[in-house]
């Protein structure tokens, strides 16, 4: 089972929920992996403190033009939809940062003048946090191929166990790459006008993608009751509420897991896992 923990708004507690959920599931004896797909700012390792035993470089293919072979026909520049390869007279320029690796340019080149060159976009770390499997992607600074890296991270998911995917915030391409085809999406929100606005966007996205989902409210007690009212009106199940407990913030700020620092919350996370079918 692949369970994605997502949110429209950043900072609602995705990583807090994902790491604690993963930890209680693994502790209960279920083979579980925590998959950090928030590759632009992965932070699950801060809380899970895994032992890293594997590192893998992730590359994508970008065009490299051999000027000696190029006949200046201009076809590569015409097919590229992203201005990643441009023909100026007889000269061919490439802009690897804009390339989406569609392969159009090397397919249409009649002179076989375009080589596929690997471009490093990030790396993946794998390891263990006790019984919990750990996988985390990290995008190279200055690179923009976030969805490509996320897809590589997801290839580490073992099909027979439980995978809890920590999704990037927002509703754009990286989120789509992280949740496509998952079994369930848990949308973490906070009960504030900002949280609700972005929750609505996230709900639109998961509905568009046809994914089953439910909502978890974090920092319950702040803001207002509009989030509950919205979920009720839309028929969306609220499967968990985590109170606005200062001790949680204190534990978080020192890199501690809630279930370690405040064991009384363990039962809540176990209940949540059971409700989601993860246990």
């Amino acid at each position, binding site marked *: 089972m692949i369970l994605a923990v997502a949110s429209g708004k950043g900072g609602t507690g995705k990583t807090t929920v994902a790491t604690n959920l993963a930890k209680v599931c693994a502790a209960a004896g279920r083979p579980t992996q925590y998959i950090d797909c928030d590759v632009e700012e992965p932070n699950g390792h801060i809380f899970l403190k895994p032992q890293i035993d594997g590192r893998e470089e992730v590359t994508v293919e970008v065009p490299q033009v051999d000027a000696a072979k190029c006949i200046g026909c201009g076809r590569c520049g015409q097919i590229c939809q*992203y*201005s990643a390869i*441009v023909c*100026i007279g007889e000269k061919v*320029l490439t*802009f690897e940062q804009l390339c989406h690796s569609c392969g159009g340019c090397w397919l249409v080149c009649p002179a076989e003048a375009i080589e596929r060159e690997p471009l490093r976009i990030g790396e993946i770390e794998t390891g263990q946090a006790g019984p919990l499997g750990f996988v985390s992607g990290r995008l190279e600074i200055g690179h923009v191929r976030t969805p490509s890296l996320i897809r590589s991270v997801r290839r580490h998911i073992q099909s027979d166990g439980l995978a809890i995917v920590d999704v990037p915030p927002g509703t754009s391409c990286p989120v789509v790459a992280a949740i496509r085809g998952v079994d369930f999406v848990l949308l973490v929100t906070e009960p504030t006008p900002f949280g609700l606005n972005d929750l609505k966007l996230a709900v639109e996205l998961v509905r568009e993608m046809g994914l089953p989902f439910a909502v978890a409210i974090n920092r319950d007690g702040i803001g207002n009751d509009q989030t509950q009212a919205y979920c009720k009106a839309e028929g969306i199940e609220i499967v968990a509420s985590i109170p606005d407990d200062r001790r949680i913030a204190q534990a978080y700020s020192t890199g501690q897991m809630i279930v370690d620092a405040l064991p009384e919350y363990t039962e809540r996370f176990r209940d949540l896992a059971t409700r989601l079918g993860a246990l």
Partner: protein
Amino acid sequence: MKVAVTSTGRTMDAQVDPRFGRAACFVVVDTDNMEFEAVENTNVDAGGAGISAAKVVIDTGARAVLTGNCGPNAERTLRAGNITLYTGVTGAVAEAVERFKAGKLTEATGPNVQSHSGMNS
């Protein structure tokens, strides 16, 4: 000689558009007789705008570009097309061309802004 000026409008008295890739349009002026034509910038909303805009300018036959800001991708494309770049240009299109003709503009030695600088202005 033709020069392309990034412009907020289609006339000689329009203001120079400070953005290159996402300029509203290009006013291409023949410095010999001051005749001009306005060329649409079709790439304003697309990715790789600077590169596409540079291609549009190259296709007009212009030999120089007068603009406010130009990022690295556009600058590299213009350079491949042997176009001389002048950045930091302000005022009306006609005034900019006069300053160019009088030799009062300084040629840019490289891009003067980062990629995407024109996206939010």
